[in-house]
């Protein structure tokens, strides 16, 4: 067997190994509420405790949202600054339908999902008339309009700055209350898995390949007969739909809607997560989101800790602002860690295998290594 054959077999083996590994990981995560595990300093307590489960569920939902943003930014290269709009549409949409009507949870959710799709179609059709930075600004403007609607509450349905509490009449009893946090945890995990599978499916589909080609060179796609606008719109709507789905689960988890989820800062936070994890990498988006959520949580705890309060102002002020630390981390990652965490992991793995890093001289060691694994 020559080296190229070895590499091919290796790749095939790996492709088979990932679903198995992924399944095992999901099973493990699914069992967490039944186990008594903890990671001191990272998790606030044991994994069966509601507080820990709540935080982990938040991680999974944020990861799901980051994955949907990865579809836009990582796959299609669409830098949207208004992705929060569809997340908020899911949250507020479901909250309002449950609040104003007697429709039970599942039909209500289906209704909101359709609403989210229609919204994304309209906004996407307009925003995609421009590209690049203009696209970013236009999506930002639309999201801002949504934010204004939610905060001003001109139609008396969103609860203004206060937000809207979840009306539990239509929600199954198993999804309400602190004691049922583990059920919500499973819902959140299921949403993440669904989002991951949809993203995976899109990436491997024809449309996904075209979207990636559009990201690299739109003119080329047009020349070979592709329709960049249509493909981008499909990706845009799919990403928005996933965000809406995630938003609905978020409403159940947080049992309320708050206008902060529709803000530009929220979308920027998504961008931070995706870049932190590594643009273009599915796992990067998931890891970036989880790291971001945990960091945000722990840094907030740090900010209010005794240790920080005792420091001189020069250190205390920056350390007591989680967003300052996250923003600074983000800048450092952009400047010094291209490819984010995923890129760093890849380089590290490559170095450990003794192969040349990507972009370097064509590695001789790599195929040999592959043959061994095969």
């Amino acid at each position, binding site marked *: 067997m020559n080296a190229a054959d070895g590499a091919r077999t290796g790749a095939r083996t790996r492709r088979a190994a990932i679903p198995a590994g992924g399944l095992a990981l999901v099973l493990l995560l699914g069992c967490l509420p039944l186990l008594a595990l903890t990671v001191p300093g990272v998790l606030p307590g044991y994994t069966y405790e509601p507080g820990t489960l709540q935080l982990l569920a938040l991680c999974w939902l944020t990861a799901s949202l980051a994955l949907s943003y990865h579809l836009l930014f990582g796959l299609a290269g669409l*830098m949207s600054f208004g992705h929060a709009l569809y997340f908020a549409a899911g949250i507020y949409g479901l909250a309002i339908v449950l609040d104003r009507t007697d429709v039970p949870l599942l039909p209500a959710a289906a209704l909101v999902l359709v609403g989210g799709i229609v919204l994304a179609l309209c906004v996407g059709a*307009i*925003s995609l*008339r*421009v590209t690049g*930075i*203009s696209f*970013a*600004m*236009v999506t*930002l*403007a*639309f999201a*801002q*309009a949504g934010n*204004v*609607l939610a905060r*001003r509450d*001109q139609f008396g349905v969103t609860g203004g700055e206060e937000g809207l509490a979840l009306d539990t009449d239509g929600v199954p009893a198993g999804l309400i209350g602190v004691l049922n946090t583990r059920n919500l945890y499973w819902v959140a995990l299921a949403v993440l898995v669904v989002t991951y599978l949809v993203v995976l499916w899109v990436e491997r589909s024809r449309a996904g390949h075209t979207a990636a080609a559009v990201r690299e060179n739109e003119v080329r796609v047009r020349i070979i007969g592709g329709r960049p606008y249509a493909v981008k719109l499909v990706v845009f709507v799919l990403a928005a739909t996933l965000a809406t789905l995630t938003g609905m689960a978020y409403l159940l988890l947080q049992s309320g809607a708050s206008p902060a989820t529709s803000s*530009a*800062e929220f979308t*920027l*936070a998504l*961008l*931070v997560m995706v*870049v932190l994890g590594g643009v273009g990498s599915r796992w990067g988006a998931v890891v970036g989101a989880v790291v971001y959520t945990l960091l945000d949580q722990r840094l907030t705890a740090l900010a209010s800790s005794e240790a920080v309060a005792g420091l001189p102002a020069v250190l205390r*002020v*920056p350390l*007591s*602002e*989680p*967003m*300052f*630390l*996250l*923003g*600074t981390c*983000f*800048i450092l990652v*952009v*400047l010094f860690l*291209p490819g984010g965490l995923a890129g760093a992991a890849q380089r590290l793995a490559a170095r450990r295998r003794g192969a040349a890093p990507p972009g370097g001289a064509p590695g001789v060691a790599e195929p040999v290594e592959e043959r061994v694994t095969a």
Partner: protein
Amino acid sequence: MSTLILLLVTGVGLGGLYFLVASGLSLIYGLMGVLNFAHGSFLTLGAFAGLAAAGAVGAGTWGGLLLGLLVGALTGAAAAALTELGLIRPLYNRHIEQVLVTVGLSLATVALFEGIWGPNPRNITGNAWLSDTTELLGARIPNTAFLNILAAALVLGGIVAFLRYTRYGLIIRAGVENRSMVTALGIDVRKAFTLVFAVGGAAAGLGGVLAAQSLNYVSPHMGASLLIFAFIVTVIGGMGSLTGAAVASVVVAVLQQLANSYLNNSGDLIVVLLLALVLLVRPSGLMGRTA
């Protein structure tokens, strides 16, 4: 009638503030292809620094106001130039990364400002004349509107003169058209980058002090809220077009004022609708180059 005049004049005044932010955004984008998310932070920093300087001389006095405007502009310029040198230049020609860095900077600085000055707005002591109104054709118009209009007109005139009559202005105009050809004539275009950042930062810092006078408060978030409208103005006017930004500033702000008054406080939404309309009819904006 008098209400309409009031709305028109205050609208133009608000447009002046938008222009002070949008002019820098537009210049920076036009020359460098960078959308500067940190621009709002230059404004906020300028406002706090300017008001601190004004307070040192005597808040509410004319000297204090002038010093505040000067310090605000200088602070904005310094912050912007440092940003360009420290964060933008190392990522030369990598536009996405440059935008990401400004995003990170805006998140970090707003949080830092909150940490330093607290999250809530702080009331300021305004100049007596500025807190007053002047009667114009039966409408009682806040004097801050006149100051904003004057400042924006001076900045517009100053930038136009700078672009037209100086060598750097020439380089910037040429660079907006075709940056790589400017370097191919042996010109280090990076100096022009720092310069447009500084000029844009100065206008934003000035805008910060003026916005504080109009609002009667300073807050760590004032930059971010003005920035969104400045973005909209920049897109409507045509990215990279200074005249476009000037026209769009006035159109957007006047429309916003009118809608807020006559259409049930819907100014912000009307502005977004206008943006959608402009994009449908003319994706490159009012005065943008048709690509």
